[in-house]
């Protein structure tokens, strides 16, 4: 497991923040590489200390020309690593 100093989240977000959709929301412009954040994409979001794994649900217009990203929280990155190892898609 990397230390938090090494972790780069694709999209900064706060798992506590939901809107009327029930999904976590954040702003697209906070992503260092916004091109990675597209509907349907599986991304690492949150903060470097406690990142989470999320599916990008949609991207909608926000205030002042911003874009709001909705995220479906799937778990933590370790969950995906465990599953990929189980499927032998990653070294044991």
């Amino acid at each position: 497991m990397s230390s938090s100093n090494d972790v780069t989240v694709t999209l900064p977000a706060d798992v506590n923040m939901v809107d009327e959709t029930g999904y976590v929301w954040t702003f697209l412009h906070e992503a260092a590489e916004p091109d990675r954040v597209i509907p349907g994409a599986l991304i690492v979001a949150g903060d470097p200390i406690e990142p989470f794994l999320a599916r990008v649900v949609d991207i909608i217009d926000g205030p002042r020309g911003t874009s709001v990203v909705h995220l479906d929280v799937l778990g933590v990155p370790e969950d995906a690593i465990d599953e990929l190892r189980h499927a032998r898609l990653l070294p044991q």
Partner: protein
Amino acid sequence: MPDDLTPIEDKLRPGEILDPASHLIMRGWPVTVEGMLANADRTRVRYSLAGEPFVAISAEVTMAGWDVDSILMGSRLRSRRSYAITRVGDLVAAGFDLAPTFQAPHYSVLLPSYTREAAERLVEVFGEVKPNPYFRRKEP
């Protein structure tokens, strides 16, 4: 004042009354000054209250159908290693108002101002950060 902020008044759940002594308010990581300020900044950029930017952070309150365990084991908070919890009454006594926003059990905790001092006070009221016993456990 930009006119394209979404009024939070349109997102309130009417008629909810909290008991300051028995209702608990909780928040998953981050429970830090920087985390609170980042949350409040996003919220004030998107929403307004009474025509002004809505300076608030997101949290969840125990209520009918939502106890501490069910909130912690929910799909979002079970991704948190840690969380903090306090009584609604303690938060209100410290000068923070609450608003029932979006879907239960979500609440917004209003900051009196977007300042480091207000965020520090909020972190102080939430108190000790505890380990989440449901971290990474699947929903039943």
